[in-house]
C-alpha cells in the first residue's frame, strides 16, 4: 500500500540554523499538508499546498517558514532560522481530494538546541 515518507526521521540543529524537512507524498495525491506536534500537545496545522501554491496557512506559518514542491515527487518544508520553540514533530500529509482521508507520514522529530 502506498505510504507518505519523510526524511530525516530525526534532526538536531542549532538555533538560527536553516533546516529542510522532506516528504514524498503518495504519488496520485494532489493536496499536501504540513502539521506539527510539540511534545505533549495537540497536532497543529501549518500549511496546505495545491497546484503548486499555498492554499492556506496558519498563524504559526510565519515568514521563517516556506514550502516547495521542487519536482514531481518531493514536498519540502524549510525553516529559515530555527528557534528553540520550533522543536517538535513535523508531519507531512497528503490526499487525493481535500475532503478525503489525509494520510500522514511517520514524522520528522526536530530538536533545536
Amino acid at each position, binding site marked *: 500500500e502506498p505510504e507518505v515518507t519523510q526524511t530525516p526521521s530525526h534532526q538536531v540543529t542549532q538555533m538560527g540554523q536553516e533546516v529542510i524537512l522532506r516528504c514524498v507524498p503518495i504519488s496520485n495525491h494532489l493536496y499536501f499538508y504540513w*502539521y506539527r506536534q510539540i511534545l505533549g500537545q495537540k497536532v497543529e496545522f501549518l500549511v496546505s499546498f495545491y497546484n503548486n501554491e499555498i492554499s492556506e496557512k496558519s498563524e504559526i506559518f510565519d515568514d521563517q517558514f516556506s514550502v516547495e514542491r521542487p519536482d514531481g515527487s518531493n514536498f519540502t518544508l524549510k525553516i529559515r532560522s530555527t528557534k528553540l520553540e520550533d522543536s517538535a514533530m513535523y508531519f507531512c500529509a497528503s490526499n487525493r481530494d481535500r*475532503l478525503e482521508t489525509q494520510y500522514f507520514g511517520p514524522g520528522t522529530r526536530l530538536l533545536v538546541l
Partner: protein
Amino acid sequence: SQQGEEDPQALSIQEGENATMNCSYKTSINNLQWYRQNSGRGLVHLILIRSNEREKHSGRLRVTLDTSKKSSSLLITASRAADTASYFCATVARGSTLGRLYFGRGTQLTVWP
C-alpha cells in the same frame, strides 16, 4: 475555534474489554477523522465519517457521529495490548475549501495484558 476535544484524557482497561473514547467539536463539520498514534510515532488513519453518516465500522472499530450534539465516539471492541496508543479525532469544517484538519488533544489508551 473548531478543534475537537476528546474525553477521557486517559483510559486504562484490561485486554478483552471494550474501550470508548468521545470527541466533541464546536462548529459544523464536513467530516470527522479518527487517528491513532503510538508513542512518538506517526499518525495512522482509522476511520473517516461524513456529516451525513451516523455510524461506520471497520473491523473491531465502530465510530458514531451525532451532529446535533456535535460529538463522535470511537469504540474499540475486544481490546488488545497492541491497541495501546493515543487516539485523536480531527475535523474538517463544513464549507472548507482547503481540507485543513483540526485536532483534539487525544485520549491515551492503555490496555493491560
